[in-house]
């Protein structure tokens, strides 16, 4: 009986540690993006093929990091000859970018 219970404990230990590893994996695979444009946006991630729906400026969504890389490059606008033009404006920004910078430092 004693040996059984010890083996059960071991298996439980293994399960717990496995779960922890999985959680870490999930959190590293998604990043939170915020939409900076005033539109309802349906966008398909180029790497995963997932459909992401954003509902207006300021809407936040967790996005697969493989898709996020491309999405952060998405830009539009810019009036070439306008003195006020600030160049093409991005659609997305990373949420808590400042915090990420601090972690890297």
């Amino acid at each position, binding site marked *: 009986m004693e040996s059984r219970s010890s083996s059960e404990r071991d298996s439980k230990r293994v399960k717990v540690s496995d779960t922890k590893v999985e959680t870490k994996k999930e959190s590293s695979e998604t990043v939170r993006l*915020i*939409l*900076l*444009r*005033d*539109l*309802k*946006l*349906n*966008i*398909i991630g180029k790497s995963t093929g997932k459909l992401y729906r954003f509902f*207006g*400026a*300021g809407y936040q969504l967790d996005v697969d990091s493989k898709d996020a890389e491309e999405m952060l490059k998405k830009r*539009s*606008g810019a*009036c070439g*000859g*306008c*003195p*006020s*033009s*600030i160049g093409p404006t991005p659609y997305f*920004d990373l949420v808590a970018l400042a915090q990420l910078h601090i972690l890297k430092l």
Partner: protein
Amino acid sequence: MALVTGTPLGTITSQEDLYLEGGPSIYFQDATASPLFNPDGDGFYWGLSGTATYPIYDVGCPTNMSLADNLTVNDVLCDTVGVKSTIQQRNYVEFTFDLQSFFPFDNLRHILKGGAVTETAPTQKFGLGTVNNSLYYMVYAPKVYDTDVGDYVWIHLNRCQFVDPWTINMSFGTPWTATGIKLRAFADTNKPETQKFGMFGRADASVIT
């Protein structure tokens, strides 16, 4: 003897030989957001600061720009001497311009009083339906008059709406032009009485020292 040239005596504030030319840039933002200076050290409310929830919209390629005042004007007429004074009250201040830049639609839809834009690659769509009368915008219009040193003037309007019907002219060989675009600045009762409609500013380090 100053009077030889006809100059009056006493304290005189003379004007500068400096002239403004061309239209300012026009930026607008939902009036729910706070202005950049809310207020500044002198008590003035002006400037815009874009956020994710309240982005700033840039009006691209405006032409025929003008800024006009609208007043209710009534004379004080006395039967004994005629008009003795005039009572004036400001109703609104109005930016009028034509527009030649139509993209992106998330900017244009505000100007044409359209609905929310939906984007699904490769299309952008917005509806023309009932006008949302509860949308108000802050407007910031700076004009740099000395690009070497960055001297500029600016106009800030607190609470504006796009009013009046627009017309889009589609002539052969000329760019599409939306005419009759009017940004009307109403009184903002949350601002000081002297800045209810907005303010005018100038930044010039060589003159204002």
